């Protein structure tokens, strides 16, 4: 036993060190400036939902769903008070229902299958807890095969999670799909095998994993040493057979067939999107990892894609792009402008619209309704935090 510990750490350290020594890659936007826009987005409506004194804007997770009578409901996780509040989306009055989830230590995301089957992701133990209509936990489903979390070797094998509302959990043929991610730079030795999407069989509670990172982007030891680069945004195709993944650093979209696991790559970039570069190890040669200021500056400077949504009412896709802050301007994450790229069903470019910056818009909390694309809006001058607000964008011809 004494001899095992150093060997494990030597192996782990070797993997880690190898991932820090890779070259730099620049991902070019081959179509920059050559795309023709025919559509734009325009704010047509605003909705606001009252918050209680323990809930704040930018909630960790929201979900829009239809209840048994077909009415649209907006469910919001209040992480501080550990409740899920349910609002009637159309009336946008006070919550019509409250689901206490105090039994879940660190709730970060949820999916309401029905009011007697509510899946809540518990980040404390990396497990999915299934709650009944009395808020009792009836199943705890480990997403790391009940591994001892203290032995961090599990992080090379299982995904971890930074849930976003725009990444809604998916029901697919009896399974609940809950994609996660690798957190830091992916060691070259595992990138070809690491699967980031988690699938939970809702009958047997068996957990399986699918879909791998594109090696040409995340392999070769390229340094993407912050979870904001390795995050996976996704949405299903309208037939619910393929998962479209929007990686923050790629102008392309990667489409994974849920049955065959075959991948298809299509262009899904913005007309003004700049080339995106990984971290340059030469900038921190003498250190074992990139300095935090360097990471923050790179993240601010770089164009980074985010969520993708399908609008079944208009048959278009929306993809978010968080624009890089130009040199000379103040590097503050929220100063990034947000563009929404619109594509048709076949991912042909239709246009893109700059909606504002991330001081006022929170694109990770977005969803589609028949009214249009709902994006959370936070008034920078609002100190009372009395409402959860959404601006609704509709598609217009240019």
């Amino acid at each position: 036993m004494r001899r095992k510990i150093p060997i494990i750490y030597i192996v782990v350290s070797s993997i880690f060190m190898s991932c820090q020594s890779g070259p730099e890659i620049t991902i070019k936007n081959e179509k920059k400036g050559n795309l023709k826009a025919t559509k734009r987005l325009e704010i047509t409506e605003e909705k606001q939902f009252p918050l209680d004194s323990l809930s704040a804007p930018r909630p960790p997770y929201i979900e829009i769903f239809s209840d048994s009578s077909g009415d649209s409901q907006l469910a919001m996780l209040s992480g501080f008070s550990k409740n899920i509040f349910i609002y009637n989306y159309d009336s946008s009055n006070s919550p019509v229902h409250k689901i206490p989830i105090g039994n879940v230590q660190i709730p970060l995301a949820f999916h309401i299958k029905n009011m007697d089957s509510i899946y809540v992701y518990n980040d404390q133990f990396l497990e999915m807890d299934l709650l009944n209509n009395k808020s009792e936990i009836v199943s705890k489903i480990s997403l790391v095969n009940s591994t001892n979390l203290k032995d961090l070797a599990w992080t090379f094998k299982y995904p971890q999670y930074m849930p976003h509302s725009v990444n809604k959990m998916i029901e697919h043929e009896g399974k609940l799909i809950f994609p996660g991610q690798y957190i830091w730079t992916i060691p070259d030795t595992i990138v070809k095998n690491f699967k980031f999407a988690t699938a939970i069989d809702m009958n047997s509670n068996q957990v399986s994993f699918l879909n791998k990172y594109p090696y040409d982007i995340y392999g070769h030891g390229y340094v993407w040493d912050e979870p904001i680069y390795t995050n996976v945004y996704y949405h299903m195709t309208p037939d619910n057979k393929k998962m479209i993944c929007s990686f923050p650093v790629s102008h392309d979209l990667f489409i994974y067939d849920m049955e065959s696991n075959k991948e298809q790559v299509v262009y899904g970039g913005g007309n003004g999107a700049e080339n995106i570069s990984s971290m340059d190890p030469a900038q921190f040669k003498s250190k074992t990892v990139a300095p935090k200021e360097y990471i923050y500056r790179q993240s601010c400077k770089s164009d980074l894609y985010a969520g993708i949504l399908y609008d079944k009412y208009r048959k278009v896709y929306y993809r978010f792009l968080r624009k890089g802050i130009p040199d000379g301007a103040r590097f503050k994450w929220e100063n990034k402008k947000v563009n929404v790229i619109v594509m048709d069903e076949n991912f042909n470019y239709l246009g893109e619209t700059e909606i504002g910056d991330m001081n006022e818009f929170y694109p990770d909390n977005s969803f589609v309704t028949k009214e249009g694309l709902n994006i959370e809006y936070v008034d920078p001058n609002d100190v009372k935090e009395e409402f959860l607000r959404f601006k609704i964008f509709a598609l217009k011809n240019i």
Partner: protein
Amino acid sequence: MKKKIYGALGVAALAIAVFFTTKTSSSASDISLSNMFKINAANAECCSTPINNGRCSFTGNCFGNPGGPVDCDTTKGSC
């Protein structure tokens, strides 16, 4: 209301403090630390304990970092 603000600020301050614990170049004078408080503050959970086995992301989340540098405790909820 006070509880909400103080709670978020307290946790975020801790997260930011942990994030910048390691000494690095201070050339980034144009980076606004005060504004980093806002980043996902509701979920910020980095905290430093003798157990430290993770690395704090700039969003304030602590993730395991086997073999690499550590500045926060991934066991979550113990601090």
